[in-house]
């Protein structure tokens, strides 16, 4: 059996490992056509857009509502819970954890729901802005995961593997498609100041080479670690240092013909130098109109942090970044869900609506896939809390809140359903792996063909294969 990864040959310091700047500039699939072109002697500056099959989306913005947002209190109302409110709830099953034991009772949603848009989508009325976008959204109620622990469920949604250590979705997409901008990473993460449980493994390159790792643009301090030298070293001095470095490196290289690894490393310093101006340019929102800033809620304490990230996401994809993941949280509302979820909804509502509208008005929504979900949903019931009952919910892997917009998804539809109390997805029910397969499909990638040989087998995002959820596709 001849086993090689398209991108990756171990035996030699292969130049393909060194072509890239911050991220992979060309993905493996794109790269193979590039190399083919080189071998044919034809021009080799760009790979084609078409990869495994015609893509509906060229890029993805993934809104990760970390902590487990409640589907029952956002997009999947269950009037039945009003009837059963505070009645005792019993659960059985072999997989009992401490969370699901003890005395439990049903909890109705403390929120009002409306039917919004022409499609009449169900939405918590607190989403004052997003309710005006529902005709561009495909709500999905059929997804489920396997774990009720935050980090394992986050790993599952982000990497397809509950136990972590595998490449994230964004890494797979970048591996497949690359990025259009050599000066920027293909996969960018906009985390909260506080990283999620499980940490940076949520945007890991896993068994891929390092250039596929998600690069966090940090909300505070230096956006990219070590982007700038200490204040005492001016840009002019930095340039002088780099000039000496380049001169010495060139002399060294001249005695070592054929060493593309050394040449790539030499060039990486110049790229780094360019990034020092490029990255702040992207982060600098000066050029945006007052109306745009206002639309995203920038300038209001409540919405500014998430608003900046949404606007940044738009700017990044405009610059050619392939996959942007934004974190919001913490949606883990075991108690006082009205206050906690209410406040979180108000923090993301206006920015998300602005992002969708902005993408649409710029003609980007049609080929930008927007995904929004958490790592699991929440239970229709709750346990006793500090001696009393409170409106809150525990973790539920069997149903979750999820929606898509743009990128070939079925706008203005609600697909799938949960049971009458929202405990379990029952209609168009699919494991998260099928969601992954569908997302890749929309991006022109076939999960069964986007493989990477590691530890004795060809690995794929879905682990062992999955199916496209056609109902979600327009």
């Amino acid at each position: 059996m001849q086993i090689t990864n398209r991108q990756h040959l171990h035996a030699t310091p292969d130049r393909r490992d060194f072509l890239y700047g911050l991220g992979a500039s060309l993905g493996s699939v794109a790269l193979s056509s590039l190399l083919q072109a080189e071998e044919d002697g034809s021009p080799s500056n760009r790979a084609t857009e078409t990869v495994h099959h015609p893509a509906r989306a060229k890029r993805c913005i993934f809104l990760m509502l970390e902590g487990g947002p409640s589907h029952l209190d956002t997009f999947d109302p269950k009037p039945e819970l009003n009837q059963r409110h505070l009645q005792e709830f019993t659960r059985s099953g072999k997989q009992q954890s401490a969370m699901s034991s003890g005395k439990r009772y049903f909890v109705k949603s403390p929120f009002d729901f409306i039917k919004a848009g022409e499609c009449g989508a169900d939405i918590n009325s607190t989403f004052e802005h997003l309710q005006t976008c529902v005709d561009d959204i495909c709500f999905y109620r059929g997804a489920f995961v396997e774990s009720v622990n935050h980090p394992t469920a986050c790993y599952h949604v982000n990497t397809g593997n509950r136990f972590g250590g595998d490449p994230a979705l964004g890494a797979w997409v970048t591996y497949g498609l690359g990025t259009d901008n050599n000066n920027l990473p293909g996969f960018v993460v906009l985390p909260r100041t506080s990283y999620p449980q499980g940490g940076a493994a949520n945007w890991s390159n896993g068994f891929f080479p390092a250039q596929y790792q998600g690069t966090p643009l940090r909300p505070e301090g230096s956006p990219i670690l070590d982007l700038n030298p200490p204040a005492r070293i001016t840009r002019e001095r930095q340039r002088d240092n780099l000039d000496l470095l380049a001169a010495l490196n060139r002399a060294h290289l001249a005695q070592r013909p054929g060493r593309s690894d050394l040449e790539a490393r030499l060039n990486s310093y110049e790229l780094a130098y360019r990034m020092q101006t490029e990255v702040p340019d992207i982060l600098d929102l000066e050029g945006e109109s007052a109306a745009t800033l206002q639309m995203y809620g920038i300038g209001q304490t409540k919405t500014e942090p998430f608003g900046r990230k949404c606007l940044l996401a738009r700017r990044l994809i405009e610059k050619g970044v392939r996959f942007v993941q934004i974190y919001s949280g913490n949606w883990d509302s075991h108690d006082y869900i009205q206050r906690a979820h209410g406040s979180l909804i108000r923090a993301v509502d206006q920015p998300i609506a602005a992002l969708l509208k902005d993408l649409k008005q710029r003609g980007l929504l049609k080929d930008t896939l927007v995904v929004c979900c958490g790592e699991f949903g929440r239970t229709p019931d709750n346990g006793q809390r500090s001696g009393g009952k409170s409106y809150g919910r525990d973790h539920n892997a069997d149903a979750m809140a999820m929606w898509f917009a743009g990128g070939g998804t079925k706008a203005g539809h609600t697909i799938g359903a949960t049971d009458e109390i929202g405990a379990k997805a029952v209609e168009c029910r699919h494991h998260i792996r099928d969601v992954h397969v569908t997302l890749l499909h929309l991006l022109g990638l076939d999960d069964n063909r986007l493989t990477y040989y590691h530890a004795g087998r060809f690995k794929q995002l879905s682990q062992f294969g999955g199916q496209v959820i056609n109902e979600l596709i327009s």
Partner: protein
Amino acid sequence: MRIFVFFSLSLAFGFSAFAADEPSVGEKLFALQIKKIFLDKCVSCHGADQTEIAGGLDMRTREALLKGGETYGTEVLIPHNGRKSFLYVATTRAEPGYEMPPKEAEQLTTEEQNWIRQWIDLGSPWPSVKMVEHIQNLYAQGKTVATTGGLADEWTNRRYQSEDLWAYRPLQVEQVPASAHPVDWFIDRKLQQMELTAAPAANARDLARRLSFGLTGLPPNTQSGWPTVSEFSAAYERDPDKAVTNYVADLLATRQYGEQFARQWLDVARYADTAGFANDYARPNAWRYRDYVVRAFNQDKPYTQFVQEQIAGDELESATSESRIATGFLRMGPWEQTGMSVFRVTRQQWLDDITDSVGQTFLAHSLQCAKCHDHKFDPIPTRDYYRMMAVFSTTQFAEIDTPFLPNENKTGFKQASKWIQNKIAAYANQRDSLNQKIAKLKKSENGVAQIGDNGLDPGDENSLARIKKNIARHTWEREKTEPIAYSVYTGNTIQRVKVNSRVVVPANPWNKGNLEKDTILTGGDAYAAGDPVTPGALSAAESLGQMSMSPFPTEKGQRRLALANWITSESNPLTARVMVNRVWSWHFGQGIAGNPNNFGGTGKPPSHPELLDYLANWFINNGWSVKKLNSLILTSRAYRRSTQHHDLQTLLKKDPNQGFYAAFHPRRLTAEEFRDAMLAVSTELNPAVGGVPCRPDINSEVAMQPRQIMGGTASVYEPDPLPEQRNRRSIYTEKIRGLRDPFMELFNQPGPDRSCELRETSTVAPQALTLMNADEVQDRSLAFAARLIREHETDLAIIQEAFRIALGRQPTAAELGQCMTHWKSCTKRELSTHHEPPHYPTEIVRTVMAEKTGEPYNFVEFMPNFESYVPDLQPSQTDPRTRGLAQVCLVILNLNEFAYLD
């Protein structure tokens, strides 16, 4: 797919002239090829699970195939018309959406596609099971392998291509002439066959750096007492063989040798100081395992003993503190049990993890594949997977009292304890005042509580929870200075709701809990018990390797000891090959067998199988001594070759993957070597060996960033207060799964969750940013400059020394001139620059999101280490000349020549 039996159709035609009861060509084709393709590639979706037959197409019988499926009915199989039959068309992948098999990696070869077409053209005959067996007995090529048996007879009786079974066969040892170096005997023979000439010998400087980093992870010319590059060069000129032999011996005798080899072993074992997942709890005693590995290499412990101690150090007759510490290996993977997890599931997670890790580490077999089904490529039945797992089903976690050995380093204890104590005290103060406040404000809640009904600020409630959690975390962490081993015992499995503190060994390990039932778990599902199994190992290695066998104990027996003995048996065909291949790969950057963790049919087969077997046999005959093996390999001419080949064109043409060792492969320093080398040239490196993990300076923004854990926020990362505490070798820095040192990650240090068989090298621009800009690198440059100025007088001597120390050579006239000019101009600018000493606050305000309100709240955290923090040398403490030189030093540390080993 090499396991397929390649049987040409023309051969089949050759038999067709025989008697009437002779099977037809079509029947033979079916029995020898088609049936196997269907089974391997089709039936798992099309028939294996009768409740869920993909597309309604059942491929288990001819009748069902003729009936067809939902999309394609009778056109699936049109006898005598292969080209039109969809069964064939689908395999050509010409029909969008119906490429079969769906996974591209499993697609059929053109030859296989043609077999299907021809079989249909021949009328698609489907002989009986008996007939198939008859045909296979008569005509099948390839070899069956005796194993404990697959889940289906087809698997048990399947045939393998001979070359895929190399790893299970007994060693085949060729004679090598006494005058020849065995490594070169085999390598040169292949080069001659390939008509390739070898590159000349490397120059002395390159070789010294290669050997010094390879054996110790440190640059030459930085350690007192070690031969300098010029001393080595002089000796090398007189007598290269002797010079290399002596230099290798000198380096093998250093303590840093054990550190370098331990670092490489710990990549395979996945060492970390925390448990990962939601809590990422400290593993306070894991460091003793890390130091055990360093000692094992430094003492040149026979590899067999090294293996036995890690797998069964507690069960050995001669069990010692040392061997008990070694069993930490079994618990190196990430693992936790919280109130949110189901014990049966997490227990199974560990059983799967250890079965696979033992397979990868010692036997170069990724066994994970056999968890759900018989191995698709290798002769590893699912039964063997569960037999191996049964070895561990009586293995239980415990932190066991184990006295400190005289050679364990306890110097860090005081600082570690002090920090934890201060941290707990500070938290306790905050807790007490919060409690007082809460006692005053708290109202009792009745009925349905709304926020604020209890009278409390939700931020305070969160803080209280966070503080209590962190006190509990640090209280457990306190045990890092106690004589406890992170270890295991043998006994019943006791159900645990959560594990958030030390687990001790029960008085009677067979009293409480249950003896686990050892069965196959159908489809890998922890709740789907199948056939019972008894403890055992890989049956293919036993049969093909002609191993001398003794049965494994069951019940309360010492199962792990039996496995350890099985692995270290001289007749085990895998063990010596695996370790020899690892050591080779650590020196050459590639294994003789290309995947050091995978010797199965999907791993890269050995490029020089005779050499691998020779070395394995040599290793066994030399007392499984890793040091001796190192000497043998490193004294070869193959290792000593230059990286520059005189005829690059021909080399690339004939050996594009550079697998024949005509030239040496250059490599970049690993993440740890980078940091350690910088500390070594600046003389800041504290050479102490072992001890509790140290906390170096890491990127301060990452250090200060809040990190969510279950029920709160982990304590801020604080570097140790004193330079000598921080500036230890990288192997001794704390490995926190949830907070990796960004410098290490950036330079391809693998994550500690999976076994890493070999390091990768990527070159990305953020590496340049970090090496030019990071405080940690700036600090090294300044200390390097200060050291040079301290030790030498003239500018000329200083620059010459900088090159000698960092690069092991003298600068050229041009380099000297360029560096002098740069230094002067930097110094000139520094004359007018004023530097304030840095200020380190002892408190930090952190912002996190309150769970109950969904709103941010701030809290203050005390950082005791910053009360006595002494920074590394800072610009404010140096003169302009030193600061100017520091910029030259920074450039030197960034050179390709510093980063790469020729």
